[in-house]
């Protein structure tokens, strides 16, 4: 290991650590990054580049690094494309190189480098087109070559958290400028947060300092997205701690002190491991005491490199020469260091890492003077091309940038509300770069984007072919599209484009900065709402009973409703048939607590209901219920349900399960926006009640056997009436309404008593053979009865008349959606109508989702007559039946159509019938 004995301010040499890279064991220290530890172990090649598979090493020292990417950790914790420069070393760390086969040293993919002259930017747009049918094979090859690291194959064992916070001032960047700004801001007692992506940020008095925290995005109304890495410096998060925390921080004001990122220089073969940003080389030495090389050449176009040279000399590194590209009037000197002014590096050598550079004097045009090259042996080449302010968050907020010639880069220009940019991020830079980037140094490939292998020639080709907007350049060449997001390459790419277009760089512009500043873990964005917590699950008071009693569930919005209750050995069909027959022949109960329930109070409720529903509500008496259908203003059915009049100015409305929320918002809209003069108050009471439907010819007998003060005889409680009282000591409302078409009651009790009621009904009905039934039996029952539901029949494109409810449309009053019924599209002729279907042979199941056609073999000119809406086996009738929406269907009863289901290769001839299969006169439900 080559470590400097005194340098390395972040190292704790008393705490050695071991780690592996590509299966070999190495040692490092607490305080190292993976990059510094690898460097200390003389590992120079970390991976291979995206396109040509060229060896890639450590180029930067932080989040700007484009090339030191590794596959970190293993199994469910493995992560691709991790910058070694940002990985804090821990004991037992495991890393692998990426994008090579069979090995990092001998990578077959490197043959692409040999063919590179035929693979310029966008080559894939120009070929792989013949023969056309070969494209899938070409594409498979492309896909296998592309990508970088690998995704885990098993779920992430770690946990992520989200936190919300507010502060007065957010300072981004923990360098001297940011620290000074934070202290100044905190003086008046403001709540100041200072965040920095690095690990080692000292505390500040009166300031909340957050290390390992990246401010990655600026969103509306001063919301900042911060990612805090609380567990990544450990082998695994401790105890139950989260691995990362996503902070959603509202900051009154933001001070951007994010500094600047050094730019590379362009010259031939400027991508070899051993070539790195000058500032990064100095940082490795100062922070980690590791020598990036033994003998260095420094090439620069500004003064900042001279301080780097001094640091390297202090660290014991030989400086072969400082190559200063500038024409300077006053020359810089450093003791013991050869300085070649007005020179440039024009080539480099070294197959698996730098061994030598070629330098040459430059003429007045900046071109290398022929026949005057000099070879310098070295294993480190520090490049210093000036600095690019990190203006990402300012720019995300809509801040404008302007090009400054003296530093050859874009800087903030003008105010953006609530944001102050300070220090290097604002262009206050030490190293001035007065000259445009020299683009003519060497003939071989000059790399701009080290990750995606975009070269100066690629940029020139793009310009030559007309891709002259910076956005076209980015998209055509993939410049800056890598995981480093072009932090070291974008500006140089634009400089080359400006050169190719012979335009000032200021006129070429820059691509849009978008969040995130550095890539953000998907798990952190997802937080804890993963697995079964994806969305909340609504539970009725009876949910536990359903779970304990073997219900199979079906999602219904946020609810999970019992679909059916299979007994041991039963298929779904067995169970559903048993449940249906129990309702038709006996008695059964179903949990209908999920239906929306809205309480309406006020002097104008009847008027309001009259406007909301298609049918009249002014004649509804206290103690009675009425079925109603509501439309949207476009005339289509929006929802249906019953309304019970509880008293003077007091009604309870039920809605469908799925529409409970939308109906409430709809009613509130009309009351608050359209008819604010109406005296109506709405309260959602869905969660306050537990509701059980009791259905079947024995349901009255069951109710009469209960301890209740209510009378259930037909005269006392006729169809569509309701009564209040108590059942077994529980306050209850009993509504005689029916969805199944049988004698039925809905019993509503306060939610906490739902379970008691349910058990009471089961116990009392035991002798009657009572069973619970689920939503599938409910579907069969209502299909037998010809009731439409929202979704299969009323799919948002259906009118009331389509459902056969034209008679309900009141002519005496206006109601929501009525005006639309006069539009040409709503004229009855040619509309789809609700009909029933039976198979011609009386036994073949009608395929669900089938399309109705007027012939057995579909072909040109065929008429699509409609579609099967709900298909069930009617246990009551002992045969399959269905509902369908059929064009002019009401006039087509008796006609034969074919239900086509090509997705399962079935065609079933069916007869169109009335949709009501059971008890068309309604004698059962009035019994």
């Amino acid at each position, binding site marked *: 290991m080559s470590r400097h004995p005194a340098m390395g301010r972040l190292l704790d040499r008393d705490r050695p650590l071991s780690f592996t890279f590509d299966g070999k064991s190495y040692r490092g220290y607490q305080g190292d990054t993976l990059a510094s530890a690898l460097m200390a172990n003389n590992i120079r090649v970390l991976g291979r580049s995206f396109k040509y598979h060229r060896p890639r090493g450590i180029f930067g020292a932080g989040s700007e690094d484009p090339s030191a990417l590794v596959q970190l950790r293993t199994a469910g914790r493995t992560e691709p494309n991790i910058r070694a420069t940002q990985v804090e070393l821990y004991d037992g760390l495991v890393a692998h190189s990426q994008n090579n086969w069979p090995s990092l040293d001998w990578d077959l993919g490197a043959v692409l480098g040999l063919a590179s002259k035929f693979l310029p930017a966008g080559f894939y747009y120009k070929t792989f087109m013949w023969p056309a049918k070969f494209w899938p094979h070409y594409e498979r090859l492309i896909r296998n070559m592309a990508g970088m690291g690998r995704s885990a*194959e098993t779920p992430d064992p770690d946990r992520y958290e989200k936190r919300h916070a507010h502060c007065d001032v957010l300072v981004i960047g923990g360098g001297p400028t940011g620290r000074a700004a934070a202290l100044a801001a905190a003086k008046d007692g403001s709540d100041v947060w200072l965040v920095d992506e690095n690990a080692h940020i000292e505390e500040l008095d009166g300031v909340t300092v957050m290390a390992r925290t990246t401010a990655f995005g600026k969103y509306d109304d001063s919301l900042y997205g911060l990612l805090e890495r609380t567990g990544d410096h450990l082998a695994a998060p401790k105890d139950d701690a989260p691995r990362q925390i996503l902070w959603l921080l509202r900051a009154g004001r933001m001070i951007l002190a994010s500094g600047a990122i050094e730019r590379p220089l362009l010259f031939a073969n400027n991508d070899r491991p051993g070539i790195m940003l000058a500032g990064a080389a100095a940082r490795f030495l100062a922070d980690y005491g590791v020598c990036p090389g033994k003998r260095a050449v420094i090439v620069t176009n500004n003064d900042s490199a001279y301080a780097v040279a001094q640091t390297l000399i202090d660290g014991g590194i030989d400086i072969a020469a400082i190559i200063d590209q500038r024409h300077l009037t006053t020359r810089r000197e450093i003791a013991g260091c050869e300085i070649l002014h007005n020179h440039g590096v024009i080539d480099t050598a070294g197959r698996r890492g730098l061994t030598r550079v070629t330098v040459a004097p430059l003429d007045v045009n900046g071109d290398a003077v022929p026949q005057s090259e000099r070879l310098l042996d070295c294993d480190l080449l520090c490049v210093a091309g000036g600095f690019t302010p990190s203006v990402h968050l300012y720019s995300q907020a809509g801040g404008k940038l302007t090009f400054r010639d003296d530093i050859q880069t874009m800087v903030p220009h003008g105010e953006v509300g609530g944001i102050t940019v300070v220090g290097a991020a604002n262009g206050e830079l030490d190293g001035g770069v007065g000259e445009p980037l020299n683009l003519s140094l060497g003939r071989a490939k000059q790399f701009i984007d080290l990750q995606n292998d975009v070269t100066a020639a690629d940029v020139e080709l793009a310009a030559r072919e007309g891709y002259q907007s910076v956005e076209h350049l980015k998209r055509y060449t993939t410049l800056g599209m890598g*995981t480093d*997001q072009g932090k070291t390459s974008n500006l140089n790419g634009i400089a080359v484009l400006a050169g190719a277009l012979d335009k000032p760089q200021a006129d070429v512009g820059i691509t849009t900065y978008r969040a*995130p500043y550095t890539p953000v873990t998907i798990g952190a964005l997802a937080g804890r709402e993963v697995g079964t917590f994806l969305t909340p699950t609504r539970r009725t008071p009876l949910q536990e009973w359903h779970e304990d009693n073997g219900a199979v569930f079906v999602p219904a919005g946020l609810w999970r409703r019992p679909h059916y209750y299979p007994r041991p050995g039963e298929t779904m069909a067995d169970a559903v048939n048993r449940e249906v027959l129990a309702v038709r022949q006996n008695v059964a109960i179903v949990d209908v607590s999920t239906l929306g329930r809205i309480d309406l109070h006020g002097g104008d409720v009847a008027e309001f209901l009259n406007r909301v529903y298609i049918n009249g509500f002014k004649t509804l008496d206290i103690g009675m219920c009425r079925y109603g259908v509501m439309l949207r203003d476009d005339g289509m059915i929006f929802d249906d349900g019953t309304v019970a009049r509880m008293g003077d100015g007091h009604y309870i409305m039920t809605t469908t399960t799925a529409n409970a929320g939308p109906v409430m918002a709809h009613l509130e809209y009309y009351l608050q926006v359209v008819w604010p003069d109406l005296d109506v108050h709405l309260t959602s009471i869905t969660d306050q009640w537990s509701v059980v439907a009791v259905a079947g010819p024995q349901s009255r007998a069951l109710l009469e056997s209960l301890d209740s003060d209510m009378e259930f005889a037909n005269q006392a409680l006729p169809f569509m009436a309701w009564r209040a009282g108590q059942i077994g000591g529980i306050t209850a409302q009993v509504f005689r309404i029916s969805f199944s078409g049988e004698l039925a009651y809905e019993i509503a009790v306060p939610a906490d008593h739902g379970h008691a009621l349910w058990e009471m009904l089961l116990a009392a009905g035991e002798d009657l053979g009572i069973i619970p039934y689920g939503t599938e039996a409910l579907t069969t029952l209502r299909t037998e009865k010809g009731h439409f539901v929202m979704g299969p029949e009323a799919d948002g494109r259906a009118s009331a008349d389509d459902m056969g409810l034209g008679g309900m449309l009141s002519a005496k009053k206006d109601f929501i959606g009525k005006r639309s019924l006069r539009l040409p599209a709503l004229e009855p002729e040619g509309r789809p109508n609700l009909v029933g279907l039976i198979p011609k042979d009386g036994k073949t199941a009608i395929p669900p989702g089938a*399309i109705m056609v007027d012939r057995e073999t579909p072909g040109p000119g*065929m008429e699509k007559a409609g579609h099967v809406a709900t298909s069930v086996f009617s246990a009551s009738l002992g045969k399959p039946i269905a509902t369908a929406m059929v064009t002019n269907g009401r006039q087509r009863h008796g006609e034969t159509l074919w239900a086509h289901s*090509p*997705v399962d290769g079935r065609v079933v001839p069916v007869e169109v019938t009335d949709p009501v299969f059971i008890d068309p006169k309604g004698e059962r439900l009035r019994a």
Partner: protein
Amino acid sequence: MSKYSLTSLIRHGLTGHRGWKPAWRHPEPKAEYDAVIVGGGGHGLATAYYLAKNHGTTNIAVLEKGWLGGGNTGRNTTIVRSNYLLDGNAKFYEHGMKLWEGLSQDLNYNVMFSQRGVLNLAHSKGQLETFRRRGNAMRLNGIDAEILNRDDVAKFVPAMDTSPNTRFPIEGGLLQPRGGSARHDAVAWGYARSADQRGVDIIQNCEVTGIRRDQNGVLGVETSRGYIATKKIGLAVAGHSSQLAAMADVRLPIESHVLQAMVSEPVKPVLDTVVTFGAAHLYVSQSDKGELVMGGDIDGYNSFAQRGSLAVIEHVTTCLVALFPQFSRLRILRTWGGIMDMTTDGSPIIGTTPVPGLFLNGGWCYGGFKATPASGWVFAHTLATGQPHALNAELSLDRFHTGRVLDEKGAGPYPWLH
């Protein structure tokens, strides 16, 4: 203009690729054109191409206020499909699918059309029945469709969590095997190059600021580069259709909304199809470069900002982890937003307007990319003949006046719900 081929690539490679000619010219606008197409995205460029190719109309200009393909063409999640329920939509999108299938060869530009399938997941029996209806309608319309059960889904997308122990267990799905994705930028560039070759003037950095007309119809457009006379104007500026139509005092059934998209860092192949989650908002595929490309629902309120709320990104990633728990440690690399023309029935508008000579192609909601070839094809026909083609007859602006809307979702006249 040299043809693109392996041979030409090798030939140019030997001379350092210095011989490639521009893919399109950068002409100055002429004083007058037979037709002016406003909007240099995929739709506008495709319209120009088909006007030239199918109708022989070449004295036309495409005016683009920024750079080609800089709007929604370059901001979508590149999905191509024709899995529509309603006939008016299905026949149109399926015509597009057929054009996609030969597009690279037709344009001599590889748009990397990748038919890896589009799979819509169903999470309940009812949802699967809705998909069966759509699948059957597709099949009867000559469009490929398959219904998968849970085991089929598990086999088709082995990386996905198809276990019953999830919040919304997967019941099955609707697969369109011919669906897939394409390289969005290449579509704009390929059409631009081919249109340019046929003589179309493609004029970038040319913003239309006004529409001049008299009682007989349009006369021309005012632009940031001067007045251009023309008797036919085709608007293909989805995202800003209302603004351009307003220049001719035409109001549209459109609101502009932002839709966000995002990509992960590139990884080796893990997902070989397009998956859409049926219980919440997510669609995801893996690009040829290796990035997971994702999108969700619109942010849900009028917006002309090409950026959106972090909450939507959180929701999309949450859904991704629900389906693929192993992707939790991948990272989001880029996010962006595009401005959608959301119509009041969720379907596009292609056809004539009340102003003679002014034609509209817009209202793409978030499905415009896949329609690019078909849209250009029928819009070219409409511009050339003054009448809609049979394929876009039902997509007319007039449908809103008769109530004969194409409400694919049945959500009603609320643009943000489509």
